[in-house]
């Protein structure tokens, strides 16, 4: 990975054209110690426009190494999406990208331009909760609440995918989202409830 230039990596992801890559005009290259490992130095920033919850967010000067998760939280100000492990193990950062569930810590922000991103902030319609949100409240499918946005986004996709045929199937397809408070049985109940509402 360190041998690749990031530009190449981005191209192979097929989205480099969407982002305007510019070399750092700043001080890093000039000031970096000559023996610093150059291959690992970030080389570019991009002015991005991300479509999140139907709103276009202009994010100027996003470094190529910034994950979608950190761009959402630190730059778009959408902190409903949570960081639990930053390496795809816990699922707290789950969002929908073009309707698919994606762990936003495992994808770069610059790869998501032109796609439709949905986060936890985008589910409710004004005052009306999404059926999954409503079911999580009623079934007490949350305790501390930190994994809850990821669980809910995953549940929305799980239902859309049609993986709610039985409690065992829900358990299996919701197992990518850890809940350390361990509300799992209540999460299964909430997903089953919401699936019924959403199929009506």
């Amino acid at each position, binding site marked *: 990975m360190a041998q690749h230039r990031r530009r190449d990596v981005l191209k192979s992801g097929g989205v480099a054209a969407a982002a305007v890559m510019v070399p750092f005009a700043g001080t890093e290259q000039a000031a970096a110690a000559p023996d610093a490992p150059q291959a690992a130095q970030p080389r570019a920033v991009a002015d991005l426009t991300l479509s999140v919850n139907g709103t276009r967010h202009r994010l100027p000067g996003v470094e190529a190494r910034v994950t979608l998760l950190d761009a959402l939280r630190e730059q778009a100000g959408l902190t409903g999406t*949570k960081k639990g492990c930053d390496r795809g193990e816990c699922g707290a950062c789950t969002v929908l990208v073009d309707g698919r569930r994606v762990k936003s810590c495992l994808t770069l922000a610059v790869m998501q331009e032109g796609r439709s991103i949905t986060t936890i902030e985008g*589910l409710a319609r004004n005052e009306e909760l999404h059926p999954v949100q409503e079911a999580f409240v009623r079934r007490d499918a949350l*305790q501390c609440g930190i994994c809850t946005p990821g669980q809910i986004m995953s549940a929305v996709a799980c239902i859309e995918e049609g993986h709610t045929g039985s409690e065992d199937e829900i358990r299996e397809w919701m197992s990518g989202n850890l809940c350390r408070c361990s509300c799992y049985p209540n999460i299964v109940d909430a997903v089953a409830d919401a699936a019924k509402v959403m199929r009506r």
Partner: protein
Amino acid sequence: MSTDVVGRPLSRVEARLKVTGGAEYTSDIQLPRLAHAFMAMSTVSRGRITRIDTQAAEAVRGVVAVYTHETMPRLKQPTYRPFFKPYIPIQSPDVHHAGQPIAFVVAQTLEQAQRAAELIEVDYEETGEPQGELDMGEAFLPPDGPDGPNTYKRGDVAAGMAQADVRIKAEYTIPMHHHNPIEPHATTAVWEGSKVTVYETTQGLGNTQHVVSEALQVPLGDVRVVCRHLGGGFGSKGPVWPHTVLTCAAARALGRPVKLVLSRAHMYTSSGHRAQTHQTIELGAHRDGRITALDHVITQQITRDDVVLFNSSEPIRMLYDIPNLSNEQRAVRLDLPTQSFMRSPEACTSHAQEAALDELAHALAMDPVELRKRNWSSRNMDNGQEWGSNHLRECYDRAASMFGWSRRDPRPGSMRDGDELVGWGMATSAHTAGGRPGSGARITIGTDGKVLVQVGTQDIGTGTYTIMTQIAGEVLGMPLSAITFDLGDSAFPQSYTSGASTTAPGVGSAVKRVCTAARRAVIDLAVAQPGSPLRGVPADRVDTADGHLYDTANRRSRVSYRSVVGHGGKPLDFTVEPTPTPLGYSVGAVFVEVRVDPLLGRVRVTRVVGCYDPGTVLNRKTARSQVLGGVIWGIGFTLFEHTLVDPATARIVNPNLSGYLMPVNADVPDIQVQFIDRPDPASDALGARGFGETPMTGVTAAIANAVFHATGKRVRDLPITQDKLL
């Protein structure tokens, strides 16, 4: 006083915020000029830094500062517990364990700080061979600590063993565990002049306040700590850890807000863990099952620099009516980070005791439920005092009946379903609750009739916001929609750490007391107020319900809180001071079914039934969720969880969530929960005891006992992994 608010399965009052992404956790807080910090950690376990080169790190674009032990502002070693470490890192070249902070980087963005931390170059001189493995030959009896004596005796163990018809002796080992809340520890420090606001992931606002005050030499009143929502703690966020004071120091030195969020890997060496333990237990009993003697030694890891050791032997000392008993808590020094308390600290000794009781029941050819009933005690056997209430025997009966225990064939390996071996096991759940300093509380009833109750406590996911709202509604006789319960700010009346199952009884008592005082004052006002329908009615004849005061002798004579306080013309304010929370004991009985694949050794928990006595159930929904959490933690403890240490280097090799296995949804069986739900007369919180830590206990041994019943194999070394059953 209303009678139907407490106990209702009310949905969490903050749930809407949590399902919409609107609940603001510590690391969500956005501030102008906020700088991001990241720490570099030591790679050796025992040594000293001889050279640290920050030149490349400082050259990274956006880096604001790189602090090492040579440049970090000096901090005073805190004496306030729970600050457990006997040193603050990045103050000297000494390295006490791998994964100790050795540099603190601050940059404009998180990515810049992380990158710069990677570029710091360090040379170490190693000062000894690291010890990462529990060597029982090095066990010693440490001096008694703040948590009580490490030795305990009653009666005459040798004589008791001599009287016994049957004796068993066994060794149990449990590895190191990590709390792993999904929310990493985070601190954001903001200075305004000489005052600091610390947004902190904490289970104890006061702990952070005291330690920051001491370490940074700031008056206590100039430190404000805020934590409105906590993304899980499980004990790890009860103590104060060095990264908090380091962040405050960097923010002060730089004159701008600094935010530090630990990485998942950092959390394995920065915020405590459940110590690895080794236990020996010997039991003697008469043929009729009455236990004559118990001899127990628990040995746990501590560090080379400190003796942080908690008394977790309460189940041994307190639970059963055993006349002759010896208990000793020993320690072995390792080159690992400081241990701390983790959800249900008594689970370790409970596991050994409840597994040994199953071995004894087998040796006696006696039903394990019957054996426990014959040794039941209504007293705290540690000090001989009667518990306020203890309905454990009823828990055994109800859970056994729900489970269908009478259909169990006691012979190991006797119950099969197709190719699978089926095992049924049971154990007692028991955990102390409370027995800690209590809580203050403040109430304001506005002229609009709205109520605000404030306590400097925390909601760690247990439901504090909700149950305290319910207690206030119950005591005041007020609809819950008129009540706001606020927490998470050290500016509110002081409260104890959210831990040791002390929040429900401690904060609950404070809310009850302050609401009782306010209600009485409103009644006194109403019976004296000119024009009031209650004017002249004796105050003790007035009751409250649905936001109104009424004459119990003439129910049509009523007036609203809003009207009384409104006519008074100014809000009513009351504050109560903390009173200590009595020590309670919340108990239960848990029954487990496992299925074991005999060819693969794979264990699945397929059914759990528990019945519990927590005193009054304040909210059936959140109390049930506490049980689900505890039971599932018990499954992880027994079958999966294990922090692996490389014995040669004393480094943790699985500091992540893929190598450290915790239960996922697919691991979780059907769990049935019942409560006795009878008030404990010794409680000052409407009969409620603390309860959060009880349900994890018992499950662990019940699973191990069920595995024995299924397979005939006693696996005494946790976790029970497949290799141990083949």
